[in-house]
């Protein structure tokens, strides 16, 4: 029996020895993908820094001298398997900020809770019908003394400390924290290769299958959030995304951290990138408000 256990222990020791001798290229067992997995894993795209394609858009805002712009591909939605058209420069103070997960968490929790109004309400002993009269006299009946049949002790009585009325959970995070949350979310999407810049949202057909095939071919992920500036979108893409659940299109004003985290991939048009950079960089150089920003300021449009 001891020889059997020694043989089994020896087998595991030999396995570990082999894996350590073979070097660090062998992945540990919990990271190895099984060979019968359905669906191909994402391949990393080549970085655009060493390519020949021209830089089609430089940042309009001034980049600090000690930072270099982040670069990414500019693609087109025109054909399913199109090549990238060029390279785009992105401002580092929006797309390469230090990723503070705690700020991201705070902004996400804020988005979930500030709109919440809970309508839970229970009747207290004063609101339950009845219970004005003392049920039996104080002394002599032999039963416990009570003042009303709707006290919290009684069945059918009111609740002593229950939820009271519509409650709101509203609070506001400081403006700069919310802005920083947006910047961090954009940085994270870019860093994880889930950010795609597109020149415009023109697609050849209003067919949702075209979009799904495009997403699958380019390995954009399970869910895509498309963002563009302005009120009007091309009819084709509106029709295509109307019936799709996981591919959604929103105007740039509607961008927020929760949607960016919910959808796996983010597609921005070039106009949307310029708009976001302008809006988010202003908060780094603005003065503190003397009165709310919605009232007119002389130097703000």
């Amino acid at each position: 029996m001891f020889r059997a256990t020694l043989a089994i222990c020896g087998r595991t020791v030999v396995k570990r020895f082999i894996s350590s001798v073979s070097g660090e290229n062998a992945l540990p067992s919990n990271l190895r993908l099984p060979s019968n997995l359905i669906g191909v894993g994402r391949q990393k795209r080549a970085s655009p820094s060493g390519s020949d394609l021209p830089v089609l858009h430089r940042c309009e805002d001034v980049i600090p001298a000690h930072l270099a712009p982040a670069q990414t591909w500019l693609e087109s939605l025109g054909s399913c398997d199109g090549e990238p058209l060029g390279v785009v420069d992105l401002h580092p103070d929006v797309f390469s900020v230090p990723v503070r997960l705690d700020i991201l968490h705070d902004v996400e929790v804020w988005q979930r809770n500030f709109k919440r109004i809970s309508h839970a309400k229970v009747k207290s002993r004063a609101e339950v019908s009845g219970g004005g009269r003392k049920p039996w006299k104080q002394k002599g009946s032999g039963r416990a003394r009570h003042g009303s049949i709707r006290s919290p002790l009684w069945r059918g009585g009111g609740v002593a400390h229950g939820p009271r009325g519509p409650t709101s959970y509203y609070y506001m995070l400081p403006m700069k924290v919310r802005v920083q949350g947006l910047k961090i979310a954009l940085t994270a999407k870019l860093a994880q290769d889930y950010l795609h810049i597109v020149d415009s949202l023109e697609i050849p057909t209003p067919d949702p299958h075209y979009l799904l095939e495009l997403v699958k071919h380019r390995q954009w992920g399970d869910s895509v959030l498309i963002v563009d500036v302005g009120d009007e979108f091309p009819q084709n893409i509106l029709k295509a995304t109307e019936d799709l659940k996981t591919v959604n299109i929103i105007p740039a004003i509607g961008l927020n951290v929760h949607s960016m985290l919910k959808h796996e991939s983010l597609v921005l048009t070039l106009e949307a990138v310029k708009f976001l950079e302008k809006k988010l960089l202003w908060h780094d150089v603005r003065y503190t408000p003397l009165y709310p920003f919605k009232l007119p300021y002389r130097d703000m449009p």
Partner: protein
Amino acid sequence: MRVFGAVFERAVTACQSSALLCARLFSTGACARIRMHAIPKLKDVDRWTEKRSMLGVYDNIGILGGFKAHPKELIRGPLWLRGFRGNELQRLIRKKRMVGDRMMGEDKHILDKRISFLYRRFNRYGKHR
């Protein structure tokens, strides 16, 4: 002895492999009696309904939209609770101020009673008054 050892090894590995194939726990019935005849099914939640996929859109309408609107104007709910947070007494006082003259009969009476009860509780008894 060696033959016995080899047979024991094979039996152990066979037991291990069969245990992996059909991991059924069995007991002699001496432990706690949890009967799992009907394991409830997981409820199917569609994570991509219209409401869930569009949750949170326009929350940054202030910072991205030129401060013409405030996110508190997005909140849908009772008039006296939009963009306001307070404890029960503060909420009831605000309700009375904003909506009180519209309220009728029993609701008004209950609101007044509750306000006076909470006022007395917060300001007269207890440690924090």
